[in-house]
C-alpha cells in the first residue's frame, strides 16, 4: 500500500513564525504536491516537484516555499505565517505521468 505521511495532524502557530510542514512517501514516486484545502475553494495547488531539487509553482505560491532534498521527502515552508494561511494542507505523491495521486491525511494549521 502506498503511504503518504505528514508530520503533524494539527498545528497552532503565531503570526510571523516560520512553519515547516513535512511530507514523506514510501513508494519511490517522482512527483510530489502540496495543496491547501478551503471550504468552497476545493484543492488549490501551492507547489509541486517532479524530481529531487526540482520544483514548480502552482496556482497560489505566494507566502510559501518548498524543499525537496530527497526523493521521498517534500517540505512546505511558510516563511512568516499569517492568519490567512490558516487552512488544511494536503500533501500528495504520484508516479511520473498522469497517474493517481495519493494523499496524506492532511495538516490542519491555525495561525493566531
Amino acid at each position, binding site marked *: 500500500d502506498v503511504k*503518504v505521511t505528514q508530520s503533524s495532524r494539527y498545528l497552532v502557530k503565531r503570526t510571523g513564525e516560520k512553519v515547516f510542514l513535512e511530507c514523506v512517501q514510501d513508494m519511490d514516486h*517522482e*512527483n510530489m*504536491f502540496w*495543496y491547501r484545502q478551503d471550504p*468552497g*475553494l*476545493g*484543492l*488549490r*495547488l501551492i507547489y*509541486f516537484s*517532479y524530481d529531487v531539487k526540482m520544483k*514548480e509553482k*502552482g*496556482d497560489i505560491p505566494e507566502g510559501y516555499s518548498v524543499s525537496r532534498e530527497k526523493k521521498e521527502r517534500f517540505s512546505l515552508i511558510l516563511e512568516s505565517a499569517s492568519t490567512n494561511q490558516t487552512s488544511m494542507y*494536503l500533501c*500528495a505523491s*504520484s*508516479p*511520473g*505521468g*498522469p*497517474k*493517481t*495521486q*495519493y*494523499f*496524506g*491525511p*492532511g495538516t490542519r494549521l491555525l495561525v493566531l
Partner: protein
Amino acid sequence: QQQVKQSPQSLIVQKGGISIINCAYENTAFDYFPWYQQFPGKGPALLIAIRPDVSEKKEGRFTISFNKSAKQFSLHIMDSQPGDSATYFCAASITSGNTGKLIFGQGTTLQVKP
C-alpha cells in the same frame, strides 16, 4: 481556461436515491478526468476516472458520464448509501509531460440520509 467548475457545493440525498455531481471545463487540452472521494479526517482518494474517448465509465454504483462537445462530465452515484457521505472532487489533467498535475473542482459535500 485552467479552471474546473463543480456544482452543487452541497447535496443531500435520501438513502437509495441517485446523487449527481456536475463539472465543467474550458481547456480542450484536458484528456484525463478523475474523481476523488474524501471522508472526514482523511485525504482524498481516487474513486473513478475517465478519458474523453469514451462517453461513460461505470464501476459498481459509480458512473462517470462525459460530454466532450459540452465540455462537461458528471458523477452519478446509484442507490446512494449513508457510507457514501463524503466530499467529492472532480479534476482534470493534461497527460502529455511527466508532472501529473491535476486541476481540481471546488468540491461537493454529499450527505446521504438514512
